[in-house]
């Protein structure tokens, strides 16, 4: 009813606006009223009309800042003030980026951090999901406990871990010393390799429940018939895992891995609160370097160029994993 009445109103409006008089001249629109109506009634156009508010919001909230960052990355801007003169375009920031050892160090640290955190989160998450997919007493409680780290606010979690990892008064060193595993305390925060291990450990602890949730949902969607048919064909547990479970979870795995890679790649809170990117830049990822250059050294243009490179790397990773997720399971 409403649609028909709406169409009539639109026709009425279109008929009114079919020609416009300016002084003595009458301008006729290029398209006639009927053509406009047909255009507006098209399902595709209607869909885009509905999407317009969302698209406009995206343009303001996402696209404008990204384009601004790209613009700033090509200019010599130290402290960015809205409306201030930005100077001419230049490649100086990118030239400096490629020439700075700190940047390549940050790339290396970022890659190592992402690989360690994602691989271990995936393995632990997958193993836990397989366990929680079995029937056993207290399964609901176990599922709830496993997801707990995910729900703890990052700053709270990191402060708790800071207390555990404190080199002089931390619980971890105390336990390891009592057990005789180490002879002297390890500087978890203040030595380069242990510091990277420490931030990775906290990231894995925060990140693996996401894999558990995603993969558990995926496991529950695999039809039991496939396992029954496999059993009839003589497939053992390992073969069923390899030929049924893994292919069935490919899409979920790719999606969960993509989201975790992106999350870890831009992770800031855990590293900043735990080590501040130190010691000696041992945990300074691209995200930390961007922040430091922008808000500690106040080289906004240079920081924006690091941000643009980070965006490019994230885009490449996204395309790769989205393609993997798109492959169907037969």
């Amino acid at each position, binding site marked *: 009813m409403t649609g028909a009445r709406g169409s009539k109103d639109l026709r009425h409006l279109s008929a009114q606006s079919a020609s416009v008089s300016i002084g003595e001249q009458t301008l006729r629109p290029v398209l006639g009223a009927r053509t406009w109506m047909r255009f507006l009634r098209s399902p595709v156009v209607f869909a885009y009309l509905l999407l317009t508010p969302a698209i406009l919001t995206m343009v303001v909230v996402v696209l404008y800042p990204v384009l601004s960052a790209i613009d700033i990355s090509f200019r010599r801007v130290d*402290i960015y003030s809205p409306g201030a003169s930005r100077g001419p375009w230049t490649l100086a920031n990118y030239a400096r980026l490629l020439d700075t050892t700190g940047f390549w160090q940050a790339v290396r640290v970022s890659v190592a951090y992402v690989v360690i955190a994602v691989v271990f989160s995936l393995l632990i998450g997958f193993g836990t999901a397989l366990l929680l997919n079995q029937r056993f007493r207290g399964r609901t409680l176990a599922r709830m406990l496993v997801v707990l780290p995910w729900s703890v606010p990052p700053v709270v979690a990191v402060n708790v871990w800071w207390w555990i990892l404190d*080199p002089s008064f931390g619980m971890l060193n105390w336990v390891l010393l009592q057990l005789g595993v180490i002879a002297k305390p390890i500087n978890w925060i203040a030595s380069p390799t242990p510091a990277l291990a420490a931030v990775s450990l906290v990231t894995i602890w925060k990140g693996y429940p996401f894999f558990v949730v995603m993969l558990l949902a995926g496991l529950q969607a695999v039809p039991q018939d496939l396992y029954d048919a496999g059993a009839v064909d003589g497939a053992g547990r390992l073969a069923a895992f390899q030929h049924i479970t893994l292919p069935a979870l490919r899409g979920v795995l790719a999606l969960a891995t993509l989201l975790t890679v992106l999350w870890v790649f831009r992770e800031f809170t855990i590293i900043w609160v735990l080590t501040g990117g130190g010691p*000696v830049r041992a945990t300074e990822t691209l995200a930390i370097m961007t922040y430091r250059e922008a808000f500690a050294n106040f080289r906004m243009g240079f920081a924006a160029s690091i941000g643009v490179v980070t965006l490019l790397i994230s885009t490449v990773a996204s395309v790769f994993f989205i393609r993997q997720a798109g492959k169907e399971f037969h």
Partner: protein
Amino acid sequence: MKSVLTRLLVLCLVIGALSVQGAAAPREIVLRFPSWQQDEPGVSGWWKEQIAAFERARPGVRIEFTKVPLAEHTDKLIAQFAAGQPPQIVHVPAQTFFPFADRGWLEPLDRYLEETDVKKTYHPLQAKECIWKGTTYCVLMLNYGYAWVYNEKILKAAGKSVPRNVEEYIDALKSMTDAKNGQYGIGIVTLPGFNMVAHISVFVYGAGGRWTDDRGNPSVTMPQVAQGFRWWKEVVLAATPIGQESGRLRQLLMEGKVASYNDGPWMQGFALRANPDVKPHLRAAPLPFQATMGGPSNVVAIPKAISDDEKRLVWEFIKSGTTKEAQVRYSVAVGAPAPRQDITIPADMRKDLPFFDVYVDAARRAVSWVPFGLETKANEFIRLVSEHAQRMIVRNEPVERVLQDLQRELEALKRQ
């Protein structure tokens, strides 16, 4: 229909009443005042008294005194200035004041200062620290010198007495350390940042070194700087819990897990909060070096970007802290001499400040550790010194080699 009309009527009445109330209420002026001293023992009480008196005398004006941790304070202020939204009352550590003055973000104060006797009565650092390119932009809040605050009970248990030279000092710190049982001779900040460089400066300036020479060029390859770093490295590796920041280290001193701490006069306020079994044993002694690190501590200023009315109000607030009476109370609150030189602290007001005389002497002997020549790049200077110093302790790299790298980086920073 009737119900809807009734509701609309009620809504209109409520909105109308609120509008009338809003129109009748006088507009409140809020002056934002972010500071790391908002909850600092001693000095925060002085600020709160000043604010209360100011607000009493000016109904409708409110000062919003909020806490920002020292480590984040300067960065946040710079971001606020860049966005054109600075707080009305600008309070910054002296070491990071110059970037604000250099960017033209601060209101020149010379014509305001004519209303006071600050230029005649304040410590010479007021002229040295607050003038940038011939114009005064700030008012000095405190000049200070560092002292050694120690736990006498732990020192005596280690069989040591108050050190009279560097060798005795380092020996005492090592003797008071029992790392396996969580006991350390001294707390030294080893996390990068302002406090880490301040703690390094104790040793560097103590050895006679300077961050920059008389012409403002980096001078970290001078032998005295290397000597200072060697002492610092020896103490850090042997007698301090690694990876701690200043707040935590002060707390460890209050709990008796750290036997001593190098700090400014504000330490007295913290000492009053120590555990009951530790508090009676806390003492202060001069640092046993040839020079005492210190200088200007913090300053207040007015941003250029606020209205003239607000500038006048902020100036009235700053001015109220420069009077003799306010400076006497300030001196007692911080436990050290106030910048105003023509005041004396009555004996009865000093009786609760056991470290006062030590800090008066320290302030008198102090050498400023502001890196003149690099003062407008204070943030990067602090980052570079922190990072290079960390190399000496986490990678055990030789002091001289690291200092050569640091010299190169500081020279490049100066050229930028």
